[in-house]
Structure formats: C-alpha cells, structure tokens
C-alpha cells in the first residue's frame, strides 16, 4: 500500500490509499476518497510548517535552549522612474546585529536583461527568491520568444511570497523597462504590490523617501535622476545605522542596462597596511609535535599524481583545531578571530 501525505486546511492528515482505512494524527482524521487525494497530491506543498513553534517556545521559556540570534539586516534601497527609464539604487552594508558582516555586498539582483531588483530584508531570502524568479522568467522568455514584462515578474514574486505569509523576508523593489514603458514596483514580503513612480524600502527608507518626495517630478533627465537617487541612498547611509558604505546604481533604459557597482564610494577604509607582516620560520617556538596516523594506503597501477590524491582523499579526515592555536601571522588573513572563553561564574 502507498501512503499519501496530504495537508488540508484543518490539519495534517495521513491516509492510506488502497485500503482506505484511517490513521489518527494529532487527534484529527478525515476519510478521503481516492480522487480527492490524487488532486491534492498533485498540488505542491506550500507554506511553512509551524508545528514546532509551541515546543520551541516552551523550551525557551524553561531555559533549556537559547533562542538563536536574529540577524537584522538594515538597508536603504530606492527606485525611481525618470525620463527614459528607471534607476535603482542601493547601499552596500550587510549587518548582523551591531556588527557589519559585509562592507560591500550586492543588493541589486539580476532578474532579466530589461529588469533588475533591489532586495531588502533577509539577504538569503532575497537572493534565493530573485534567483528563482529570474530562472522562471528565462523559461517564459524562451517559451514565448518575447521580452518579459515587469508585471509578470511582480506577479510571480508576490504569488510566491503570499503563500508564506510574510515569513520569507524579501522586501523587493523591481524596476525595468518593457513594451508598456518604465515601471517600478515594490513587492512586500506578504505579497502586496505597490506601483508608484518612486519608492524606497529598508531601515533607511524614511531618510531616502524624504529626499525622493522633495526632488521627484515627472520626466527628470538622466544625470539629475542619478544625482537624486545617490542623494537618497546617501541620506540613508549617513542617517541610518543599518545602511552604509557605498552606493550601487543600476540604470535601465529601453534596450540598455547599465550597472554601476560602487558608483559613489565615500566611506573607504582610512588606513590599511600595504604589506603583511612576515616572520621567519622558527619565530614561534614549537612546544609539542604530534603525528596522527590516519590510514595506510596501498597504491598500485596509478597513472598520474592526481589519481593518488583522489584515492587518498577518501581516507583523509579533518581534525578540528582550536582557534587559540593559530597565530595571526601564520594565516593569510589580516585578522583572525579568537574565541573569547567566558569565565564561568562560580
């Protein structure tokens, strides 16, 4: 007999198809006819499963498990329609709480040759969603032989995000030029679409919106439009802690897309070492040396050194080493983070 897992609105249900007998799950059981099950199983499962949230809440309350840290990503992204097309702008800071995780990350994602998308919110969600949608749009372009419309991308995006009720944290501004003209649309994480001539999202959006509201008018020429977007993003960079570093710009006109990575870069590192330190071998005293025998490998009939490597690779195990054993000059990085062990209160 085959089991078919179905998800109904009332709850999770498991039914056995052939015999038609029911199983009790979570106190809910529903007897379903076979055709209905087949119809339901053709639909892909949508939405997140929240079955573990109560258990997690209980565990956190009882202090059995610590709640994992929430990474807030601040951003300033903005988009505007100008005379010949659309301009998108974004800052380049990715934060992890109070720490800057990436000083120069890319927030303007590719969707189609005539469309780009700025993403705010959870970085992973933005990347994954825009990647997925851009591939779907590519298939549509191949099947129809036509350039994609912005409304197409917006519908795909908001239909997908709606199914997850806002828990996929992708707050996007899609901008592009299609046969109907230039468009900007803001797709919110719960699936809401807002079609406006200019828009700004992210933690720095209040600052950027202030600039856009005062400066926007219809049919702005290109240079002035670039300057307005740069000022809007800079307002976010200098007045919001979650946004910073450089300004990326993307100018999309009919038939041409120009991407300016780090168009404005006023927050460069002040001082940096030209050459890394170099210590001669033997500077660090070796106190103890241990050799661990991993495996004995017999190699016969080998034609190239590459084969030796491939054969031995399966026997090599990685041994984890504490960070405190590494010295900064022995690594290639400028900085090595060392674990600070907290003193246990006695």
């Amino acid at each position, binding site marked *: 007999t085959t089991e078919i897992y179905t998800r109904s*609105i009332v709850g999770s249900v498991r039914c056995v198809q052939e015999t038609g007998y029911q199983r009790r799950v979570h106190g809910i059981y529903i007897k379903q006819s076979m055709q209905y099950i087949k119809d339901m199983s053709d639909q892909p499962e949508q939405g997140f499963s*929240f079955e573990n*949230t*109560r258990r997690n809440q209980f565990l956190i309350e009882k202090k059995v498990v610590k709640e994992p*840290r*929430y990474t*807030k990503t601040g951003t300033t992204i903005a988009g505007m329609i100008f005379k010949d097309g659309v301009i998108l702008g974004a800052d380049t800071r990715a934060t992890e*709480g*109070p720490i800057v995780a990436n000083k120069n990350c890319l927030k303007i994602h590719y969707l189609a040759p005539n469309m780009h998308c700025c993403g705010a919110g959870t970085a992973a969600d933005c990347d994954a969603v825009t990647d997925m949608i851009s591939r779907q749009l590519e298939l549509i372009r191949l099947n129809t032989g036509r350039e994609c419309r912005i409304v197409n991308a917006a*519908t795909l995006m*908001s239909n997908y995000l*709606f199914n997850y*009720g*806002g828990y996929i944290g992708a707050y996007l501004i899609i901008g592009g030029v299609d046969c109907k003209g230039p468009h900007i649309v803001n797709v*919110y994480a*719960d*699936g*809401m*679409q*807002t079609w*406006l001539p200019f828009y700004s999202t992210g*933690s720095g959006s*209040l600052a950027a919106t202030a600039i856009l509201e005062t400066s926007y008018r219809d049919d702005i020429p290109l240079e002035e439009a670039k300057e307005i977007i740069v000022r809007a993003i800079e307002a976010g960079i200098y*007045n*919001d*802690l*979650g946004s910073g570093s450089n300004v990326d710009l993307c100018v999309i006109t009919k038939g041409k897309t120009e991407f300016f990575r780090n168009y404005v870069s006023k927050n460069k590192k002040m001082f940096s070492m030209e050459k890394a330190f170099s210590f001669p071998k033997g500077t660090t005293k070796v106190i103890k040396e241990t050799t661990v025998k991993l495996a004995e490998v017999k190699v016969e009939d080998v034609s190239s050194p590459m084969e030796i490597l491939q054969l031995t690779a399966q026997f090599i195990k990685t041994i984890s080493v504490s960070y405190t054993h590494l010295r900064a000059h022995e690594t290639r990085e400028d900085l090595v983070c060392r674990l600070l062990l907290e003193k246990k209160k006695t």
Partner: protein
Amino acid sequence: RRPPRSTPKPSSAASDVYKRQVHGDYLIDMESIDWSQPIRDGTTIMAVVYDGGVMLGADSRTTGGALIYNRVSDKIEPIHKRIFCLRSGASAHTQKIAQLCRLYIGQLGSELEETPPVYSAAKIIQSFIYNYKSFLSAAMICAGWDPIKGPQIYTIPLGGTLVRENIATGGSGSAYMSGFCDTHYKAGMTRKECRDFMIQSISLAMFRDSSSGGIIRLLDITKDGVSREYISHDQLPLKQNNYSQSCLLYTSDAADEGLGVDLGGR
C-alpha cells in the same frame, strides 16, 4: 494556526545603540516604528447606487502601524469591464482575492460570451473570505453594472456574509461617517448629487480617522462606460487646516489662568 509574530528584542547594550539614533538634540527610538506590523488598507470605502449607475469612492492611504507605505494607493480594483471591487483590510490578502476574482470572472466571461453578472463576482469573493476566514483579514465591496439587474452593490465583510445594498460603506473610517450617511442618503439621486454626497462623507471620515487620508478616488460605472477621477487634498471640502487655524486663538495666558478657550474658528 499562525504563531504570534513578535519583533526580536536584542538585549545587549551594543544593540541598544542600534535601536536609538540621534538626530540633532533629540533621540528617535527606532523601535517606535514597528516594522513587523502587517500592511493594511485601514481605509474608508463607499459605494452608492444612483439613478443610472453606481459610484464607488475610496481614500488612498495604506498604513503599516504608524508608517504610511503608500499615500496615493488605489483601492478600486477592476474585476471586469463593468465590475469593480473596493478593498479594505490586509493589503496582501485583498489584492490576492481581487486577482483571483479577476481570473475566474475573466474565464466566466469567455465561457458565457457576455457580461458576467456582478453577483457571480461577489460570490467568488465571498467564497474566498468565508472559507479562509481564519487566515484572511479582508472586507470588500463588489459593485458594478450588468444587463440583468442593472447597477448593484454587494458587501462582503470580515466573516463572509454577502449582502446586497444600495449604499455600502466599509473600512475603519466608515464608522465616522455612518451618521452623516444615514441622514443625507436618499434613493434615486442624480449623478451630481451622488458625487457631492460621497465626497463630503469620505472627507468627513478622512478628517477623523487616522488610517484614512490622502486623496479621494472616485469611479463611476454606468451601462455606457466607466470614468475615474480623483479629488486632491486642496479640493476637499473639509481641510485639515480647519483645526490649526482655530488653534491660533489659543494663548498660553489663557492656559495659565485656567480659562476655557473659545475656539471660534471651528
């Protein structure tokens, strides 16, 4: 069932700095802007049947907590050539419902090869709101014209009832204009009377309700066609300035003396 959505509260001092930003001489607490509030069309929506057609009206404010996400939003969604619906409630939910209704009515129109009845559109909206009422937060008004019954309005509030009416109001602002509507509505108005009535009542609601504001969007559906217009803030009969002008009469001396102040400008 949906789990409670809560804003994360980091406890370390370093992240408290992130929460507060200094602007000039005063601190702005970033937590006062709650980014996790669902985006709602708090709204004032209204539809009235007049002699010859039906007129729909809505404000244009979309809020998420205290922040206005769109000050010129369009809450009048087209469903078919002569069928429109007004949205109120959670924006994502209502946009989705309207999109699905548009899809099904489009199919129905092709199958029947004639104008689909407004009742069908209302029924489709009702089936979504009623069957998914625990997940959705949507209240809609479906209005239009069809050759069978003429101009019609159907309200579908939160629970999913379907009621046909000649005047329908909805949204958070509708409570503030119910008295005005009850007094001044009469059946069989002319187009101009209906338009003036709607502009006056929606601006009364916008004046008092914080979730409504912006411009008034009007849509007129008759058997001959559909026409749209908007009333911008400086053309509104009730301006926000009314109060501030009267407040100029208030002086601090009066406050110190504990006298009542005559706000004659009201």
